[in-house]
């Protein structure tokens, strides 16, 4: 076969390795000349001018009724399989399907323009999609994907009979077809949730990113996925072999036998680790030479707690509270926050739960704060800066954390600290809140430990002074890498510059750990590098106390720790930090 080993770079959306046969869901132009088909899985829908108007209206009625029933069933299945948050996606779809204006626009096209049911649905949906696409607002733009989903649901029902609830072509989910790699312009949430991980080995789409509804569902299902794969959609042919590397965000089309073997080994290694992990559950994370490391989970809401406990997490190293503040029309109240923090505190009992105060701004917008648009949001009013500028918002959160502190072992952590002064300002606010709580006679925990994130070069270089002010450090590698190397990993043109192996990044991490060790305060590391098996021995050798990561990475990290040593030959780290570049560091670590 020609053109073996074509590597297509995309964006990592859902982790893991998938190898299978391509099933390309093409997006042909429709014959109404109105642009592209709405969904890959819909047969071409034509204009049916000669149809009987009443019959077409009846077909629409039947399709809408059936679609609502299907959505209800899908909602129930999703709730049982993945959870209430995932299921709520389909409530929004139902509201759109029941929208009287959407419906009357479809009916009007049939009555007044003599359109067939399919063309009427298609054109009406296209009109809304165009409206949403034109709005300069990420939230509203993303609603175009939801309109596409409901429209393709209707079109499927119209073209394949009212009883057909199959979302994807049969061969995709048919066990005899073997392991499939789905390649499409876009996969809708409905499509994604109906996939069976036994048959679908991976997903590659053109549109979508790590935060789309479909991506969240793929991760929940454990199907490796990448986005930004336009070249793959163009080049892949039906039943071509494709490898999806959801960790690196790449696809390999028509891999050579050698490449396939390499990835099969990696896949087998991942599976072996999973089995090993099952057997190591509950065992301590101790190195071969006896150093104990605490392994914590990262969470975004109380619903993530279960996964951390199931994977043997020894606490929470990073509770990203911003998710409580997002996708809302107003901030969560003190009691809403208190409930969330209390639930997590209670679930972990004696084990520590590190609550990071609001880390918004940057790419995480809070519409209700009505913040001015910034030229450089990542260098702007984000994280602790935002909280200090909105003391009411900050005080409410601190009250909730201190109150929840009586129900478990909570710690409070400030994001994006650069200066001692920022810590002191935050402490003054915390002290004021404690005074208020005492005055109000509300029960609270007065000695919740206070720590900071080290995630800028300034904080890392200034860590000795910062360590005097706080009770623990947590090194946030994702932002530290971005700020140290001055590159945006979401930008495809600079993403390749983003690497934890750059000697400058490792030098800053090393300096931060050493400062904490000198001051005698615990230091942890969160961010993706925390679960990087090559780097774990480096962090151990410098003197890290804990690592925090997504729950799914805890077991394999525990296994890696149990295979590692914390003592390294003299000069090992010093030599590493002297290396010329990231590639040299990677080679050094593989030796």
């Amino acid at each position, binding site marked *: 076969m020609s053109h073996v080993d074509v590597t297509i770079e995309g964006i990592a959306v859902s982790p893991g390795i998938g190898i299978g046969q391509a099933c390309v869901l093409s997006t042909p132009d429709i014959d109404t000349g109105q642009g592209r088909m709405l969904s890959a899985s819909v047969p071409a829908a034509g204009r049916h001018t000669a149809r009987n108007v009443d019959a077409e209206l009846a077909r629409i009625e039947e399709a809408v009724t059936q679609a609502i029933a299907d959505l209800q069933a899908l909602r129930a299945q999703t709730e049982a399989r993945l959870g209430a948050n995932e299921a709520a996606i389909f409530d929004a779809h139902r509201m759109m399907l029941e929208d009287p*204006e959407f419906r009357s626009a479809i009916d009007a096209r049939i009555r007044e323009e003599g359109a067939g049911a399919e063309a009427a649905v298609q054109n009406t949906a296209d009109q809304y999609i165009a409206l949403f696409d034109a709005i300069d607002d990420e939230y509203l733009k993303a*609603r175009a994907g939801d309109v596409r989903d409901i429209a393709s649901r209707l079109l499927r029902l119209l073209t394949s009979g009212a009883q057909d609830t199959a979302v994807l072509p049969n061969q995709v989910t048919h066990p005899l077809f073997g392991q499939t790699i789905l390649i499409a312009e876009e996969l809708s949430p409905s499509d994604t949730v109906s996939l069976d991980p036994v048959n679908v080995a991976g997903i590659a789409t053109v549109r979508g990113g790590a935060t789309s509804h479909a991506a969240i569902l793929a991760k929940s299902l454990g199907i490796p996925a990448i986005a930004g794969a336009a070249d793959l959609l163009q080049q892949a042919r039906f039943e071509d072999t494709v490898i999806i590397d959801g960790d690196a965000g790449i696809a390999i089309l028509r891999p050579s036998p050698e490449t396939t073997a390499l990835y099969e080994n990696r896949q087998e290694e991942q599976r072996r680790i999973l089995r090993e992990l099952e057997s190591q559950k509950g065992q301590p994370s101790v190195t071969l030479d006896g150093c104990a490391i605490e392994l914590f989970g990262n969470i975004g809401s109380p619903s993530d707690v279960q996964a951390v406990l199931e994977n043997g997490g020894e606490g929470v190293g990073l509770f990203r509270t911003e998710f409580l503040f997002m996708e809302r029309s*107003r901030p969560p109240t003190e009691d809403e926050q208190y409930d969330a923090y209390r639930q997590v505190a209670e679930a972990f009992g004696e084990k520590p739960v590190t609550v990071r105060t609001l880390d918004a701004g940057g790419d995480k917008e809070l519409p209700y704060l009505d913040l001015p648009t910034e030229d450089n949001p990542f260098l702007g009013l984000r994280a602790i800066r935002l909280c200090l500028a909105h003391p009411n918002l900050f005080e409410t959160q601190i009250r909730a954390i201190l109150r929840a502190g009586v129900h478990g072992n909570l710690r409070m952590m400030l994001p994006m600290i650069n200066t001692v002064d920022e810590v002191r300002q935050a402490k003054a606010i915390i002290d004021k809140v404690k005074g208020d709580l005492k005055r109000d006679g509300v029960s609270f925990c007065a000695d919740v430990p206070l720590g900071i994130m080290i995630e800028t070069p300034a904080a890392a270089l200034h860590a000795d002074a910062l360590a005097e002010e706080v009770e623990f450090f947590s090194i946030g590698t994702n932002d530290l890498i971005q700020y140290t190397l001055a590159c945006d990993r979401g930008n495809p043109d600079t993403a390749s510059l983003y690497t934890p192996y750059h000697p400058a990044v490792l030098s800053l991490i090393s300096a931060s750990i050493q400062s904490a060790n000198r001051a005698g305060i615990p230091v942890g590391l969160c961010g993706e590098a925390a679960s990087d098996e090559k780097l774990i021995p480096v962090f151990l050798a410098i003197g890290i106390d804990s690592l925090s990561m997504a729950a799914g990475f805890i077991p394999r990290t525990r296994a890696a720790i149990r295979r590692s040593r914390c003592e390294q030959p003299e000069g090992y780290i010093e030599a590493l930090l002297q290396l010329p570049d990231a590639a040299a560091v990677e080679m050094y670590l593989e030796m």
Partner: protein
Amino acid sequence: MVEKQVILRNASGLHARPAAEFVKIAQSFESDIKVIRGESEWSAKSILALLSGGISAGDEIAIRADGADEQQAIDALTALLASFEEQDGAQ
């Protein structure tokens, strides 16, 4: 027919959850209800219409109801918008 001018003061305007709540309340009335901004108007009972209108904080809008329960509809919807504003302010 009853019409009332309102300035949207809650920070997120009529996006996401506020829009959904607004539409659900509007749908509970028989009257024909419109949201008007400048030259444009949208059905208050249509989530797609309201979202695609991109109505934002600070926008001056009018709510117009026409039908048997027009006054109740206007009262309920303006009260809802005021409650968004209060919840914003309470924090």
